[in-house]
């Protein structure tokens, strides 16, 4: 099924801040979950990568909370940051996880998430009628574009793995 994300409606600046906060908070939670999975499956290199991504998203989340000032983004996000079909934009695809995945795979997931967030805020800029919402969304676009660039830079350190990255000499069971 094609999975168009049904974005929550933004009627005020508070909605925008809450949704932006929710996007980052969801990403934190997702990376923490993936780090836990990799810990369980003894892939320490990936634990470190996902924990780093988690920390980076936590910084973004807290920054949005600071920017929002008096708006209670935590409570408001619970009400308005609701995404139809699928996950919120920056949540890494859980189904793509593999116990032998490499940092390159993890960063591909991160890149896809940042791009989805960038597209979302771009669409807000394009459709917002309220100049304050538009202006703030433009700032979020800049921020997300920076994140996309950052992941691209990180990817230079981690080239794609060889085609046999998922081969396991002691697989869970021989199916062939």
């Amino acid at each position, binding site marked *: 099924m094609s999975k168009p994300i049904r974005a929550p409606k933004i009627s005020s600046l508070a909605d925008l801040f809450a949704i932006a906060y929710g996007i980052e908070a969801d990403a934190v939670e997702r990376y923490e979950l993936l780090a836990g999975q990799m810990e369980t499956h003894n892939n320490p290199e990936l634990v470190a990568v996902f924990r780093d991504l988690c920390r980076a998203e936590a910084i973004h989340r807290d920054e949005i909370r600071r920017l929002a000032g008096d708006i209670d983004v935590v409570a408001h996000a619970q009400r308005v940051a609701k*995404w139809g*079909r699928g996950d919120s934009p920056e949540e890494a695809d*859980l*189904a793509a996880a593999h*116990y032998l995945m490499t940092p390159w795979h993890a960063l591909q997931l991160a890149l896809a998430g940042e791009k989805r967030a960038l597209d979302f805020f771009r669409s807000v800029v394009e459709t917002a009628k309220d100049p304050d919402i538009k202006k703030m969304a433009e700032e979020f676009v800049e921020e997300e574009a920076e994140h996309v660039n950052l992941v691209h830079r990180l990817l230079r350190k981690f080239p794609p793995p060889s085609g046999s990255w998922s081969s396991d000499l002691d697989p869970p*069971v021989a199916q062939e």
Partner: protein
Amino acid sequence: MSSVDAGLACKPADYKSDIKPIWCPGCGDYHVLMSFTRAFAELGLPPEEIVVVSGIGCSSRIPAYTNCYGFHGVHGRSLALAAGLKVTRPELTVVVASGDGDGYSIGGNHFLHACRRNIDMTYVVMDNRVYGMTKGQPSPTTEPDFDTALSPGGTGLRPFHPLVIALASGANFIARCFSGEPNETASILVEAIQHPGFSFVEILSPCVTFRPDEKEWKNLVHPAPVAATSDPGKAARRIMTDDGFNIGVLYRGDRKPYAPAIGSASVELTELEKDFEL
């Protein structure tokens, strides 16, 4: 169990326990757990008013990962446990979690009679068409040509059709979900829990380890083309003729739930002990 302050709305995270799931990375059951916690938060139920009951298998680990009351029971007997619990403690919200092996094979007979009894509870079966915990044997919903070292040439057996069996047996609410759509699944779980009587929700939840082909499911699922019906005849026809990937609520019945009159709940412990004296 940590209690949540009264008056504060619960967040999905409030329903998660501190136990880290040990499912394989990529397993659909992570999403199902997420759907559970989102649904519970949406319903606004305190964790201590929910009981998650399960049998045996990968999917049946779910009670441990929630912060609600839980009962990780014996293989295939989750519905029997849950039925007893709901009848004696009707004020609790009872959600039963199972898999295709636990629910349709070992617990197949309980499934039929739970549908027939129509006790007000929700039965969630995470169907991955394989016994994952025991390393990849065919289950009742496995395709006949699933050819592996454990089933050379495939079983050649017609797969079990849980939705139509649930309908024929009297389930009052029937839905199919896909684990990769946790928000949609959560919404359907909310509806299933709120619907009176026995609600059956099948969740297609890929096993990436023993059925890597199921990763393709995300491209196969699609919303059911018509809204749910309350006509069992229509529902049967639709379910029997769909491609197995129609997602959504497929049947909403209006049978009265089974709720027997029970004795006083305020029996003293000493009185109960007398009943068990040898």
